[in-house]
C-alpha cells in the first residue's frame, strides 16, 4: 500500500507510532494532486505552502506525544467554507479573488483537531447543481469514468476522496449535495441533522436546508470526521445545543434487530434497474445480518422536488442579495450609478443556473405570488416532514437509493434543468425534514460506475446510521475498490 491508500483511522496509528511522518504524508498527497488532478479538476486552490507548514507542526506535536484526533491528517474542503487567507470562490466568478478575513467554525474545528488542509475543492456555483457542471472553473470529472459527472454540488469533495487526492473532505448538503456525489463517486457521505454542525463561515445557499458534513473512504472515517465537526456553536443561531455522542462507541454493534423501513415510493417507476438490483442485494445482506424490514409509505414524496425548488430558490434569492459589488467580489462599474453597478456586477458575476434560481426565487416571493408559491411550499414541507418523522417512529431507519441512476454523462442533462433537478428526488425529502442521512457504496453498474444506498435516520441519530452502515460495509467491502487513475 502507498501512503495515499490509508484511511484516517489507519493514519492515526501510523503517525502516532512514527512509521510515517506528517510531512511525508502531506508531500505524497501534494504529489498525487499534481499528477492526477489535472484530469479530474477537483481542486480550485491547492494550499501547498500552508499545508507543509501545518504538517511540520504536526510532526513536532507527534514527536512530543501530544497528538490530537486529526494531527497530520491531510483533508480538503469544498470551496464554500470561508478560509482565512486562502482564496474562497464558491466556484463563482463573483468571488474569484475573494480572500476571507476569518475561518468558519467547521474549519476551525478541523484545525483545532490538528488536520492539515490541502486546499479548496470544486463545486457547483453557490452549491446550485447536481452534476458539478455549474462551476465557473469547469466541471469535475468522475474518477471512475472521466466522461461522467461526479454529481453535485460537492462534486470536488467526492472526487478527491475517490481519486485519493485527500484522505477525506468536507462538503455541504442542501438537497443531496453530499449524498448524491458520494454515491456517484463510490465514497461515504453523511448529511447530519439540521443544527448538528455549525454553518458559521459557510457561504449560504438555502439557510433552512443547508448542512455541513463529511465525505470519506469508509464509515469509520465518517464517524471520526463527524465527531470532529459536530456540536453547538453560539455563532450559528440555528445550531442545536444537544450533546454530541461518541460516534465510535457503537460503531461495531451490528444491525441485529434493527428495524429498517423501505419507502414504497422510492422504489417505483424511474428507478434504474441496476440501482434497484443493488438495493435489493443490500437488503438481503442486511437481512442476513439480522435486520428486520418493514415496507412503509411516504405518500408526499412526489411533491418534494417542487417544494424544494420553491423554498431553496426563495432563500437563495435573499441570501445572494449580498453580492452587490461593494463589500467584496466582482464589481462592474460603468459610471451609471449605484443601481447599474449592482445589476451589472451581478449579471457579470453569476452563472446561468444561479441566475435562474435567483429569478425563480424572486418571482415566488414577489407580490401576488407569495401565497401560491412560497407559502404553499412551506405548508407542503410540513406534510413531507411529518411523513418522514412518522415513518421513523415505526422503524429505526429507512433504506433507499441515493439517486435514481448511476452517474450520467457530462453534458447529458445540461439543456434540461428540470431533469437535473429530478435526480435529487430521493435526497431532497431528508433536507426538508431536517433529519440525517448517510450515503454508502453498494455496488457498481455494468459500466463500472458506483451505486450508492441511503440510510435515513431520526433527528440526531447519526450514531445509528453509522452503526448500520458499518455493519453493511464490513459485510460487503465495496469501499475497498479503487478508481484507477
Amino acid at each position, binding site marked *: 500500500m502507498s501512503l495515499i491508500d490509508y484511511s484516517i483511522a489507519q493514519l492515526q496509528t501510523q503517525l502516532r507510532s512514527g512509521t510515517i511522518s506528517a510531512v511525508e504524508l502531506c508531500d505524497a498527497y501534494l504529489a498525487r494532486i499534481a499528477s492526477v488532478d489535472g484530469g479530474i479538476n477537483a481542486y480550485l486552490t491547492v494550499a501547498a505552502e500552508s499545508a507543509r507548514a501545518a504538517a511540520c507542526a504536526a510532526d513536532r506535536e507527534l514527536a512530543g506525544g501530544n497528538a490530537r484526533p486529526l494531527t497530520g491528517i491531510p483533508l480538503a474542503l469544498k470551496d464554500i467554507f470561508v478560509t482565512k487567507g486562502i482564496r474562497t470562490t464558491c466556484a463563482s466568478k463573483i468571488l474569484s479573488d475573494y480572500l476571507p478575513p476569518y475561518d468558519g467554525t467547521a474549519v476551525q474545528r478541523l484545525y483545532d483537531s490538528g488536520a492539515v488542509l490541502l486546499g479548496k475543492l470544486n463545486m457547483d456555483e453557490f452549491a446550485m447543481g447536481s452534476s458539478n457542471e455549474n462551476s465557473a472553473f469547469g466541471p469535475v470529472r468522475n474518477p471512475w469514468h472521466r466522461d461522467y459527472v461526479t454529481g453535485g454540488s460537492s462534486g470536488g469533495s467526492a472526487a478527491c476522496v475517490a481519486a485519493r487526492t485527500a484522505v477525506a473532505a468536507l462538503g455541504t448538503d442542501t438537497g443531496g449535495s453530499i449524498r448524491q456525489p458520494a454515491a456517484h463517486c463510490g465514497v461515504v457521505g453523511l448529511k447530519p441533522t439540521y443544527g448538528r454542525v455549525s454553518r458559521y463561515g459557510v457561504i449560504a445557499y438555502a439557510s433552512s436546508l443547508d448542512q455541513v458534513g463529511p465525505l470519506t473512504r469508509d464509515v469509520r472515517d465518517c464517524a471520526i470526521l463527524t465527531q470532529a465537526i459536530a456540536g453547538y456553536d453560539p455563532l450559528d443561531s440555528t445550531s442545536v445545543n444537544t450533546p454530541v455522542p461518541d460516534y465510535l462507541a457503537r460503531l461495531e454493534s451490528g444491525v441485529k434487530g434493527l428495524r429498517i423501513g423501505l419507502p414504497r415510493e422510492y422504489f417505483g417507476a424511474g428507478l434504474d434497474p441496476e440501482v434497484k438490483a443493488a438495493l435489493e442485494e443490500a437488503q438481503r445482506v442486511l437481512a442476513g445480518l439480522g435486520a428486520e424490514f418493514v415496507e412503509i409509505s411516504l405518500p408526499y414524496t412526489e411533491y418534494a422536488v417542487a417544494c424544494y425548488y420553491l423554498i431553496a430558490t426563495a432563500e437563495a434569492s435573499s441570501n445572494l442579495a449580498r453580492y452587490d459589488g461593494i463589500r467584496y467580489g*466582482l464589481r462592474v462599474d460603468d459610471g451609471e450609478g449605484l443601481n447599474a453597478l449592482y445589476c451589472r456586477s451581478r449579471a457579470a458575476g453569476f452563472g446561468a443556473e444561479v441566475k435562474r434560481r435567483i429569478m425563480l426565487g424572486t418571482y415566488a416571493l414577489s407580490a401576488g405570488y407569495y401565497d401560491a408559491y412560497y407559502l404553499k411550499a412551506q405548508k407542503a414541507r*410540513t406534510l413531507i416532514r411529518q411523513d418522514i418523522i412518522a415513518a421513523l417512529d415505526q422503524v429505526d431507519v429507512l433504506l433507499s437509493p441515493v439517486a435514481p441512476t448511476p452517474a450520467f454523462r457530462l453534458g447529458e442533462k445540461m439543456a434540461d434543468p*428540470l431533469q437535473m433537478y429530478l435526480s435529487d428526488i430521493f435526497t431532497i425529502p431528508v433536507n426538508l425534514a431536517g433529519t440525517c442521512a448517510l450515503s454508502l457504496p453498494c455496488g457498481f453498474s455494468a459500466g463500472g460506475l458506483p451505486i450508492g444506498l441511503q440510510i435515513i435516520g431520526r433527528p440526531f441519530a447519526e450514531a445509528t446510521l453509522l452503526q448500520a452502515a458499518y455493519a453493511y460495509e464490513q459485510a460487503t467491502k465495496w469501499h475497498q475498490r479503487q478508481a484507477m487513475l
Partner: protein
Amino acid sequence: MKITADEVKKVAKLAKLTLSDPDIERMAADMDAMLAYVATLANLDTQGIVPTAHAVPMANAFRADSLRPSLERDDVMAAAPKSAGGTFRVPKVIE
C-alpha cells in the same frame, strides 16, 4: 401559464440582474417550465396546515449583550473592490 418578457424584466429588476434580450427569452422559457412543474403543488390539500419555515423547532437564539472583538477592519476592507480611508467606496447617490 406563460411568463412574458415584461414579467421577466420586472423580476430581473427586483433581483438586480441585468439581462440581455436573448437572456430574457431563455429565462422566460426556463421559468415557464419550472412554474409548470411546481404547479403540481396546487393539487395538494394544505387546508389548515401550518407552514414550516425551519425543520428543527426553535425559538430565537439570544446571546449576552456584551462587547467582544470583531474582525479587523483592515482585513475586511482588503476584500473590498474599492475603498478609501477605511470605508467602502460607492458611486455618488446624492446629488
